[in-house]
């Protein structure tokens, strides 16, 4: 048990450092979408909801599974959709009007 904890702690600390490194390079122009996007990432808690669904064996377990499912799904689906909606509005420079030229991937 304690070995697992140590391994997980190491992952946790290193991820924190990676996060600091990656996030501090993001320009303030994109801070709102970044916050929303990272918000969507913690929607990964939906994996937790799936895990508890598979071990639920009591009424309390089922209710909690349902609650976790609702909340996590709102987080993950809403988070990614709204972030995408924000980011697709950031129009490319110079391209004045017609965006049909070039690929519309941006």
């Amino acid at each position: 048990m304690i070995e697992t904890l140590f391994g997980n702690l190491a992952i946790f600390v290193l991820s924190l450092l990676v996060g600091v490194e990656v996030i501090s390079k993001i320009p303030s122009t994109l801070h709102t979408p970044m916050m929303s996007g990272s918000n969507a990432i913690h929607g990964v808690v939906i994996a937790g909801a799936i895990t508890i669904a598979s071990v639920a064996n009591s009424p309390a377990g089922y209710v909690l599974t349902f609650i976790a499912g609702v909340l996590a799904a709102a987080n993950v689906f809403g988070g990614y959709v709204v972030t995408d909606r924000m980011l697709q509005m950031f129009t490319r420079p110079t391209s004045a009007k017609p965006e049909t030229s070039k690929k519309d991937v941006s």
Partner: protein
Amino acid sequence: MSTFDFLVGIVYLASATLFVVGLHMMRAPSTARRGNLISAGGMVIAVLTTIVFATVNAGGNWIGWAALIVGVAVGAVYGVVQARTVQMTSIPQLVSIFNAVGGGAAAAVAFAEFVAHTDHTQLDLTVSIPIVLDVLIGSITFAGSLIAAGKLQGIISGKPLTFPGARVLNVLVALIALGAAVLALFGAPNLPLLLVVLVASLIFGVLMVLPIGGADAPVVVSLLNAFTGLAVAMAGFAINSQALIIAGALVGAAGTILTLQMAKAMNRSVGAIILGGFGTADVKTSAGSGSDDLTNVRQLTADDVAIQLAYAQHVLIAPGFGLAAAQAQHEVAELAKLLTDHGVDVKYAIHPVAGRMPGHMNVLLAEANVPYDQMLQLDEANAAFGNCDVALVVGANDVCNPDARKPGNAVSGMPILDVDHAKSVVVIKRSMSPGYAGISNPLFTDPKTGMFFADAKQGLADITTAVKEYVTA
């Protein structure tokens, strides 16, 4: 570790990598959208893997799966509808709500993990500590973020809400939550005890955010975002899932950095914001001292402003909270486009905390089809002000107060837009009233500044109409 476990671990690692790559690509507007999609791809992989792993490992029964599917369907519909229909000015509230549900989900997961173990004699501390911490942090985030969203939305008063004894009550509730949390760690799993942790943490979350002023709410949202990250990581420890740990840590880092940057840009310490909420000083100096004194103020009409703009070569627009509040982003973009077509070089000077959260102004302008290369960040903008003929300040105040360069006042040391370095300044503002810092702004009485008293939306529309006459004539 079986081969199957190993494979699952590898796939989780891959999805975590996609999260990092996705965030990494958010450093430039041109790649940000793809970055978000890559991050979503990581999410899909993590979810699919978890489904396979959970089915093989535990199997579960149909009631559990049904509860999950129905729940997910409800949540997904709610989330997508909100995300699709929200007004861009209301983004901060929505981010706060999505943050709340994330924290709540983390708490629910930990709680369920605890419930599933109540038939055992004693939980290992390596599991029970993260569970209890998760319930604690997750519930505080859930309640706190909902209150913060309410404040941003205006459902709950933006004024700091305090009452006699609030501080004592706050400490008391915190002690109850912590005490029950410690007790829950030892002895056989005790459900009522964890319920006490849950309820006390929820109450604490409410009490913590209620007294925080509306202008500080975005900082709190960001801080609570970091909390949710931590809660999700704790859930990862509890159910031994590296995907949750890594993602949670990433979000924790993101929220922390943003909180610190925001506090710095607002010239406040995070401690002062949170503690300010605990009933200590957070008193705004009332608008008193000569705020209606217009003797040294040069007042302009829409026509005056239009002439100044039309004959300028370089114009920098400094939008502030007033523009966001008036939802005038389309009007300002229309004016800028008109001037650009007329041959004027127009750019936007954007302070990091313009709008209602960091980067919010950029989103609002992007919504009005302003290309992102016209949005200058603080440093670029300040380099450009010296060469700027007209600086047009729309609904901004403290972020361009030159007194920030002097010591000894409420904005001292705050990073500002050097609007006063421009050759002339036009300020669109409803009145002379001070901004959030509660102090007067010498920029408004500067001889080269002209004040155009108007609501941002109407004022900009009037200027646009006036400019049109000069351009076509």
